């Protein structure tokens, strides 16, 4: 969040409380859904906050669009829907689970919790929220890939450790595919991030795509195996 917010934008920052203020979506998922060419083998919904939505980068540079392109190149005709909402906490993500299910996902990449951390929310709550989301998605036969997150060092080592522990714990309990750290090799590198030090630049998202890709392939394989087996 920008601490030197100009007063002229008084309320917006209040509302936008943003790890997540401003995003451009790659796709119009629902619009495409309506005219969805039957060619797609499956749907991945990227649920998350501004890191998914692609805060501050041009359309096409956020990770879901790049991920879809990479999948298609590799011969996987899957579509990846960007369902990121800037500023959203894990509580918000949990509240919109029904809305997400309307997109009929086969796989959900769940990237949430960063805003909880930035607001100092008790990691216990974040953990419960993610756990409940995973349970509800699984109940609808959606395969969940959980994106691990870490908090900034300035929040204090105790908090940082408790926060980082959320993801492996939920992944283990619910048998989710875990990306150990969504922003691996990106976080903390000034050259890969925007001036706010939080949101990746386009080159940062390239690395994010490389990080996520193998876990998604793993999920797709598991999903298709499951479908064939049925």
């Amino acid at each position, binding site marked *: 969040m920008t601490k*030197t917010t*100009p007063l002229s934008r008084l309320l917006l*920052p209040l509302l936008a409380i943003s790890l997540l203020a401003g995003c451009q979506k790659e796709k119009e998922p629902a619009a495409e859904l309506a005219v969805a060419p039957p060619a797609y083998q499956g749907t991945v919904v990227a649920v998350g906050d501004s890191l998914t939505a692609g805060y501050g980068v041009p359309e096409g540079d956020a990770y879901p669009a790049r991920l879809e392109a990479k999948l298609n190149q590799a011969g996987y005709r899957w579509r990846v829907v960007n369902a990121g*909402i800037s*500023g959203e906490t894990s509580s*918000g993500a949990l509240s919109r689970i029904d809305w997400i299910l309307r997109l009929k996902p086969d796989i959900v990449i769940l990237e949430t919790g960063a805003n909880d951390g930035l607001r100092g929310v*008790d990691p216990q709550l974040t953990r419960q929220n993610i756990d409940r989301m995973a349970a509800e998605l699984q109940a609808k036969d959606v395969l969940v890939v959980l994106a691990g997150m870490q908090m900034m*060092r300035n929040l204090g080592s105790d908090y940082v450790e408790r926060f980082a522990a959320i993801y492996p714990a939920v992944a283990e309990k619910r048998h989710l595919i875990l990306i150990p750290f969504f922003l691996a090799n990106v976080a*903390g590198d000034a050259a890969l991030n925007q*001036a706010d030090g939080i949101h990746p630049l386009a080159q940062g998202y390239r690395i994010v795509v490389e990080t996520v890709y193998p876990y998604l392939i793993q999920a797709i394989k598991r999903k298709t195996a499951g479908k064939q087996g049925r």
Partner: protein
Amino acid sequence: MLNLRFIGRQITGAKRQCVVFVLCVALSMVTLVSLGSFSRSVQSSLLRDARALHAADLIVHAHAPLPAPLQGRIASLAGQGELLSARYWDFYSVVQKATGEGTLLCDLKVVEPGYPFYGQLLLASGRPFSQVLTPGSLVVEQALLDRLRLRVGDALRVGNATLTIKDVLLQEPDRPVNFFALGPRVFIPASDLTSLGLLGRGSRADYVTLIKVAHPDRLQALLSALRGAAGDSRVRIESYRSADSRVKRFFDNLLFFLNLSGIFTLLLAGFGIQSTLFALLKEQERTIAVMKALGARSRFIIGHFLAVTLVLGLLGTLAGLSASLALQGLLPWLFRGLIPARVTLGVSGWAVAEAALIGLLVVLLFTALPLYRLKEVKPRAIFGKEESGGFWSRSTWVIAGTGALFFLAMVLVRIKDLKTGSYFVLALALLILVAYLLAVGVLRFLKGRQPKNLPLRQALKGLFRPANASRSIVVTLSAALAVIFAITLVERNLDASFIESFPPGAPNVFFIDIQPAQKAAFAASLAVKADYYPIVRGTVSAVNGQPVDAEKERESRGDNLAREFNLTYRHDLLADERIVSGKTLFRRDWPQEQVSVLDTVVKMHKMQVGDFISFRVQGVPIRARIASVRTRTSSGLAPYFYFVFPDSVLADAPQTLFCAARIDKRQIGAVQNRIVAGFPNVSVIDLTQTMTLFGQIMERLSTIVRFFTSFSIAAGVLIVVSSVFATRYARLQEAVYFTILGARRRFVLAVFAAENLVLGAVSGVIALVISQIGSLVICRQGLDMSYRAYPGQSLLLVLATTLLVVCVGMAASFSILRQKPVTFLREQADE
């Protein structure tokens, strides 16, 4: 050769007019000197406020340690004595109680000695901040103590260090600029930064270097030098003057308004001078005619009357200067607590010289026309048969043109903007023209009326008696009143949109991220009246089918359409909203989905009522037709939304709730504890401190504005007085005739009262019409803010001025009535 006795006799013979003339000159002088010297003090006081809000002259802001060249440059400039610098690091951290359970997200500010360069940190103990914040100690906000149930003297774990709470922070000067905080403030001395172990790779903090320049005139040069040394777009360097903020805009508007009202006062005083002189010369018409009949040339006569005005002008200047000096002595008392005691309120020699020069020009300018018209007095005026010639002769135009040029120059000197200056002068010309046309129209209408009431009928007749100055009085009065009304209206609007934006009852605590399912329980737990706003995140994809070009949008300096917006839904306007386009918020007769947009959006992208905007709300496209355009009538911290939908469109979309509440300062800690315990996902933003600071500053500024506008009101009163004097002679005559015809004093009084009433009311109404339109344009175009008409207060203005005209008129008439008709007739016969 000037005949001094003649000059002396003219002055002593028309004492009242001369007093008003001198007062007008004095008033314009007081205004000029005040704006010259005092406004410099006001300006520096305003700038001081602006500086205190940033705590420094220059602010270097980064998200990482400053690049070496910039650091080197700051160090070398400090070595040369050019500047002082103090760094601070601002970041969030979760602090822990040293004993027992309890953690809290806090906004840490680790400061080097020297902070703040401007403004003051107020501590509960009243001790100086620098003495309290010693190594190993903390200064915290009360909210932290409440939330963690701690007391001053207790220990707190911050990062790897355990520090002791030494004092409670009451006020932080730069808080309003960095007001957005998710946790209470904690001050830590820079000497403990390393032991915290919180900064380094993987941390996120604001790295700020505050700079105080040694020589204020070098500010801009140093700013450029440092920006040059930064060479990196990630480092932002601002001066307290350049920092773009609402506060800055307010200060700019205020100074602009003060200058404008100063010039207006000058203009009003000029009108006063002119109409007094017209009155004075009117009474002397016969004397002049006699002089002409005896062979005096116009040049001789004009020369003598010019000498009269110059003597009066000199008297006025002297009176004005001594009044200014007295006022300057009085100001520190008048502005107790508003302007820091160390501000020098001296009268500068330059300001006096400038004022005297401009005062002389004003006198010459406004006396030119009445004096010039002496040429037109014909000897036959002795017989009272003077005919008024065409008013708009070529020389009138020349004089009027010179006047316009003079005011253009004045405006340019004061406002330093050619466009504004030209608008200003054009507006003045338009003002007088419109006042003239309206006066002619209304008077023509009145001329045909035949009211049953005899005094009223006589009064109307009196308005059109030969050689009566009704038209010019109405023009002068209505133009002058229009200016005063406009100043009052603009001031009210400035007040409403800035100062009253921080009313005592405004929300001071905000809660974000309340989930819809939590609302009922949350409201019960909060237990105070609060407003809830649903928030749905979404983006704009197209306007009228034209896709939004994100790249191009982001190039815009201001806000743009390419970001994500907080959408909401409701069916009513908020208290501080008004529809500027469209009939209602939503249309019942439109089958399509609808949206109401804020006028800010229309500025970002061209659109109007009836157009279509395509949104993407979390994956779902929504195409909505613009049913109305709204504007905000205040600039406070109240929530507002760019896009408002009817319930039917968004109610089902994923959303969170935003809550704004007014909570007593002492209760905030307890409420926060309750909310955080019951609803751990909800974050609290407490703006109490910011609101208090803002409120104080705004109140102070409002007093200054009122002080300056009072000058223009004084000028207005003088104009009313002088205009009434202008008709005094004709009244005298009339009173005598009425009395001779057997009228009682009461009847004569009724006629005079009715005449003044008509003059006052007509001028007042014309002035109101002009001022409403003028203020609307000034507010909307000049000051870029919304406009309110204040119908009740406008009506009061008209009533008050009418009453004033009647009272002054009656006061001037009483002496007439006391005169015995025979005295007047004898004097007539003597002539």
